[in-house]
């Protein structure tokens, strides 16, 4: 209920932005026009008639929160990080890959795209190939854990789409990465 209210307020604010001053005046409670009678003290006031609220709940729409995006769900974790010049999935990311493999196994019609990325150092073409090996390493692990070949496509963006800019160890580490995207997200 609370969420619906917030969404309604949000919609109302948006509507306000687009509306004209006259319309805003019409929503007023008091009539302050010159010559208007002041409200009589003790008089019965009419209940203000409002149109019904048309709520918009963004949380139920595609792209809203779901088991794939809810931060409390392990499936919301989508990035697997790699060591420099390596394309083997580190042990610490095994539970993450397992969770996604389970989801693919349980949802046979779901499709996934894995994008491999690298840091900026070295050859662009070699990095494109390295990113491909990274996405394929994740794909291979998913298939071993029960996902089916036709559910998963592995591609590479090489060093061309860095998430972190800058030439620091930290930025490089963030960019040596495989990202998992589900249908509708790519």
């Amino acid at each position: 209920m609370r969420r619906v209210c917030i969404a309604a307020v949000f919609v109302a604010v948006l509507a306000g932005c687009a509306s004209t001053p006259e319309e805003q005046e019409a929503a007023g409670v008091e009539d302050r026009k010159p010559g208007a009678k002041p409200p009589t003290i003790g008089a019965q006031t009419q209940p203000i008639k409002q149109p019904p609220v048309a709520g918009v709940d963004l949380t139920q729409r595609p792209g809203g929160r779901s088991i794939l995006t809810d931060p409390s769900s392990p499936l919301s974790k989508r990035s697997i990080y790699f060591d420099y010049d390596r394309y083997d999935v580190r042990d610490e990311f095994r539970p993450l890959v397992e969770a996604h493999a389970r989801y693919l196994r349980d949802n046979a019609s779901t499709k996934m795209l894995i994008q491999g990325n690298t840091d900026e150092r070295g050859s662009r073409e070699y990095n494109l190939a390295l990113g491909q090996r990274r996405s394929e390493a994740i794909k291979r692990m998913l298939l071993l854990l029960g996902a089916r070949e036709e559910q998963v496509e592995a591609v590479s963006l090489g060093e061309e789409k860095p998430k972190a800019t800058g030439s620091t160890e930290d930025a490089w580490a963030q960019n040596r990465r495989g990202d998992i995207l589900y249908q509708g997200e790519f």
Partner: protein
Amino acid sequence: MRLLIAAIALLAAASSATAQLSIEITGAGAQRLPIAIAPFAGEGALPAGISTIVRADLERSGLFRGIEVPPHNPALSEGSSVSFPEWKSRLADALVLGSVAARSDGRYEVRFRLFDIVKQTQLGGVAYTLTPQQVRATAHRISDYVYEKLTGEKGVFSTRIAYVVKRGTRFELQIADADGAGEETALASFEPIISPAWSPDGKRLAYVSFENKKPIVYVHSLVDGKRHVAANFKGSNSAPAWSPDGSRLAVALSRDGGSQLFLVNADGSGLQRLTNSSGIDTEPVFSPDGSSIYFTSDRGGSPQIYRMPARGGDAQRVTFEGTYNVSPRISRDGKSLAYIARNGGKFQVALLDLATKQVITLTDSDKDESPSFAPNGRMILLATVTGGRGILSAVSSDGRVKQRLSVAAGDVREPAWGPFIQ
């Protein structure tokens, strides 16, 4: 939707004239031949001074030093008689005299003669007919003539270069004269463009575009802007390299897993697998005679350069020093291999003499990428980073001559030096 995005990208490819490369010479040859290039009589009628462009061309090569020419009375022209003692006293070893004359058809005629002051002889001369729009092209041809007569090797002043400029979220594949002038945008996109490769006839470019959210190899005709997909298989499609006859492309594809080398006809037909390794094979490049392919592979545990027969077969390792040697490019005479070597965390251009196995490091920068030989083998164009910005740099194959090419407010990368124009 995807088609729409691609269409917008192509429409946007039309205009953008703010990106001219400016060239700064940062190192010159040890011995530069002093040459006097007299202002061409009547060249003021043209939109740009031919003698000025010729002098800039020759000086930029690092092999020539222009000598100041004081005003003469009467003014020097192509037909002036040459006083060899005068030019000797000015310490010139060579002299160019020229004239420009308007023709009745609205075009111009430029004539010039080249003299060897030391030997006191005329080396030759040529006359060209041109429109005012052809001034730069004509000047570059004069530079090529002078360069070849005096050095014995072909000049590259009339050639073109391709490169990618990234400005904000916009990527532009541009073509410019070798001196950075006259840039034109062949493709503009909001997705990355990498690895442009010139067809041997200089009329088409193969490149990798991410416009459909993954790397796909295209072939683009520069005259009419028509382009077609040369390789779009499952996974990544990249690293196009033309066969010397222009009929086929070697490419790196991940369609069967990993990154492996394939041959495909330039029209996208006739796919044929070349390598079968368990690791990464990429960055193929044909030897000039078409018999071999050099490429990068991590089959030995670290990325190194290998050579294999162009029809496929056993590969031999070519680089042995260091643990990261990538991006092989072979000189037109087939004798030298330029590549990127990682030296203690720095990525630099190395040159390997294939006969003697001698390796020299040509640059002192630390983020070099994508070396590209000038068609005469004298200079190597490369991408590097300085002050956090991507620029192009050129270095002579002896490491002495250095130039820096940059654009205002943008990153330049992925250079490819085009072939000689017939």
